[in-house]
Structures are given as C-alpha cells and as structure tokens.
C-alpha cells in the first residue's frame, strides 16, 4: 500500500515537471501552429541561466527566475522575429529552422562549457516533507505548484483578457483575426516569447534537481511531445493533465516493469489515445484539423 502511494507521489511530482516543460511547447503549437523542436533547448538555456546567475552573483535558482524568465522571453521574441517570421509562409521551413536552432544551441553550450556537468544548488534542495512513509522533495513540489499556477494563469488569461481572446482568435482563424484589427505578427512574437519564458521558468525550477548537460533538453522534450499530443493540442488543461498521465505511467512502469521501458510505454499509450481520440484527451473535437486549414 505504501509503495503504491509512493509510486503515485513520485509520478505526480514527475508529472508536474513534464507538465511544466510542455506548457510552453503547447502554447507555441496551439497559437502559431509550429512544432518548436528547440523547446527543450530553451529549457536547457533556462537551466544554464540559473547556473550563470548562481556562479557570478551567487543567486539561488529560485531568485534567478526574475532574471532568467525575462531573458528567455526576450530571446523567444528575437528568435520569432528574425528566424521564424521571415519564413512565415513556409511552415515546413519553420520547423526545420527550429530543428537547426536545436543543434545550434546544443553545440554552442557544449563548446562554451566543454561538456562539463553543472548543478545550481538551492537551499530548498535540502528540505524534504515527510508524511508517514512518504518523502516529498520540496524542489519537486515547487515544480508541481508552478505548473498549476501557470495553467491557472494561462487559462484565466485567454478567457478573460482582451489580449488572451485575441490570441484565441488568431489560433482559430488568422485571416479573420487580421480583419478584426489584430496584429497577427505581434501576437506570434509575444506568444513565442511567452512560450520561451515558460521554458525558462521550467529550466530554472529544474536546475536544482538535475545535473546539467547540453543535451538535457532532449530528455524532457520527448515527454513533452507525448504530453502535448496526449492532452490535446493547444489545450492548457490538456498539457497539465497530460503531464501527470505521463509522469504516472513512467512511475508505474519503472516500478512494475523496467525503468528502461518508460519511453516505449509512453508512446504505446500515446498511440492508443491517438487512435481513439485523434484530438487528444482534452482537445476540442476537430481542433486538430483547424491546424491544417489554409492559414494566412
């Protein structure tokens, strides 16, 4: 019984991390309709950003959020404006461009760090909450709280603010949005920036948990793709719940089967869901096809 409970807790905490990493990917996919292959590398940059803040000014990773998140937002805006926007009428090329960025960012970081692993320690890392037989790591709990807060904020934002509604309008029909007076290019820039900022947030929150390497983004991005498609493309709560599903699957598979099989099992579930519900568990029926409609 206690081991079952333990597995669930481990799975939920892991799910929080996956959800957090998926949030930005999902936002960018949902609005701009491009798969940002470099999203994992943005998470990686966030982690290294936290490390740099720690190294040079001795900041705790949780405080470096206030530097790293705005910096990643700016980086995302610049990336969208100067790399993706010039390719706007060629969606395929945009995807290749994000793949190119993946390679570029990985290798730049590799060249700068010479592949050495770093950690950005936080005072919080030492704390563990013990509830009976359960041990809950505080830094992982923070990630879970953060993803919940991010999901709540995003869903409030798109429902209740004019800017959020405009973003939904852009998602549903770009041309009509333009005709309403919405600056679609600006919406894309800000959305990409927000997606990168979420990756930065994920990176800083993960910095105390994982040892950094230039390829670490890949560990998260595989999970994030599964989460996003499983939960429903473009659905905030889909990514949130999808994160927990993937986290729980990994925890159970790791305990009862073999940890090495976790990816295989994610993708079996993932394919199963796609066969039954192509829009994902929480996607609006037919929403996956809107992405294929002529958009300009």
């Amino acid at each position, binding site marked *: 019984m206690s081991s079952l409970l333990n597995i669930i807790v481990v799975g939920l905490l892991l799910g929080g991390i996956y959800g957090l990493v998926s949030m930005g990917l999902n936002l960018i996919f949902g609005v701009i309709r491009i798969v940002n292959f470099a999203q994992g590398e943005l998470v990686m940059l966030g982690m290294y950003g936290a490390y740099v803040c720690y190294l040079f000014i001795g900041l705790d990773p949780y405080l470096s959020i206030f530097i790293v998140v705005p910096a990643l937002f700016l980086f995302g805006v610049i990336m969208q404006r100067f790399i993706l926007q010039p390719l706007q009428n060629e969606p395929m090329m945009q995807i290749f461009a994000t793949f190119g960025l993946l390679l570029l960012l990985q290798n730049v970081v590799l060249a700068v760090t010479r592949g050495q692993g770093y950690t950005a320690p936080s005072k919080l890392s030492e704390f563990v909450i013990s509830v009976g037989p359960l041990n809950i790591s505080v830094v992982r709990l923070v990630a879970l709280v953060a993803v919940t807060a991010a999901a709540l904020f995003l869903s409030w934002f798109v429902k209740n603010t004019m800017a959020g509604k405009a973003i939904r*309008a852009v998602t*549903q029909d770009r041309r009509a949005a333009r*005709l309403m007076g*919405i600056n679609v290019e600006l919406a894309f820039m800000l959305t990409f920036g927000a997606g990168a900022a979420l990756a930065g947030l994920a990176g800083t929150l993960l910095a105390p948990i994982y040892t950094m390497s230039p390829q670490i983004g890949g560990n998260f991005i595989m999970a994030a793709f599964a989460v996003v498609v499983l939960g429903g493309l473009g659905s905030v709560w889909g990514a949130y719940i999808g994160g927990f599903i993937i986290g729980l699957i990994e925890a159970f598979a790791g305990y009862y089967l073999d940890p090495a099989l976790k990816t295989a099992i994610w993708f079996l579930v993932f394919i199963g869901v796609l066969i039954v519900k192509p829009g994902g568990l929480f996607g609006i029926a037919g929403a996956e096809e809107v992405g294929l409609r002529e958009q300009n």
Partner: protein
Amino acid sequence: MSAMLQVRDLVAGYGQAVVLEHVDFTVKRGEVVAVVGANGAGKTTLLNTIAGVLQPFSGSITFDGTDITKTPAHALPKQGLVLVPEGGRLFPFMTVEENLEMGGFSRRKASDFADSLEEVMQLFPILKQRRAQFAGHLSGGERQMCAVARAVMSRPKMIMLDEPSVGLSPKMVGEVFSLVENLARTKGITVVLVEQNVQEALEVSDRAYVLDHGRFVRNGSSAELGGDPAIQAAYMGL
C-alpha cells in the same frame, strides 16, 4: 457627396497571376455600391486588396482622404474600414459574444464595448438569444448575421461584404440584404456589396459595377443596370 473610397488604376493578383487589370472604382459617402460578376471575375480579389489582405502590384487606394495602398490589414478597422469575408469566417470555438468582442478589438475601451454590444444586439435580436453559444454551432444565416454584427462592432465608416448570400436560403438572403440596407440608411454606414446574386444585389444598391475577367465592363445606377436586357440575359437568367 465626397468620395469615401477611391481606387485608381489598380492592378492586383496572386504571385505572378494578374487578376485585376487597371481597375478604377469609386464609392461615395453613404452609398450602397454593388460589385457583381461571375465566379472568378476578380470580385474577392478586389475586396481583399482594398482590405490590405493582398498587396496590389500597382495603383492606389484612398479611403476617407487617406492613402491606404500600403496599410496592413490589421490597421484598417481602426480607420473605419472593415471587410466581412466570404462565409463570415467567425471564430468557431468562441462564443457569439466573444466574436462580437473581437469585432470591437480595434476600439478596445471597455465602456465603448458595452455600448456597441447593446446597439448591435438591438440590430440583430437573434444574436441576443445565441450570445453564449459557440459561433461554430450557429446556422448559416445566423453565422452571416453574426459576421455582419461583428463588423459593425468596430463602428465602421464603411463595410465591405463578400458574397453574404452564399449558401443561404432565399428567405435568409432577403433578411441579410434588408439588414444591409438598414445599416446604410439608418447608421449612415457606406456599404460595398460583392455578389453573384445579381438581382438581389441590384435591388438593395444605389449603384453597381459589373466585373468581368478582371475589368469593369459596366457601371451605373442599379435601377438602370437592372433594367438592361444585356445584363438581365448575362447575369440574371432572364
């Protein structure tokens, strides 16, 4: 009456293909002007070019005294020019009310929005009952009404309608057209109406242009064109 819209020597199209060849087009303040013609004549291209969705190859477009030839599409609603695209293109997963809100996007202020919404609901009572429904669940006629209402939310000086009658029942077509007439007569909104439904379009408009293969072949008062046997034979199946 001064000109609301003045299009001079416009050449436009897609990629290499020229669709409109040296077109001149004038709409006076408060007029309802119809542009009629067969499928593929270039009617939608004309509207899209004026609305900034397409960049013209050459020529000039002046709206209410301002040169808008190079103005991007998203900047035009603020200047008072709005296009209702073919099929309405509502935001299907947003409610009717949210769609209307988006219509008022260029005017932002919340107080303005409440006023406009009230006014628009008066004009389109059917939307009042549907305000909390997803726009994607509306019937064809309601969808067209909602698209026009959404355009009115921006308090435009001029509305351009692209084939509002497509796919509607004859009864709905009548309703949509009388609404268009109402907008022009009571709100003083200038209207450009692009239609294949020539007969109805000539009935509600003051003047009309006949577009054929990218050129205007006729223009004049709608009554005069409607009575012309050549037009009747070519476009009205009489």
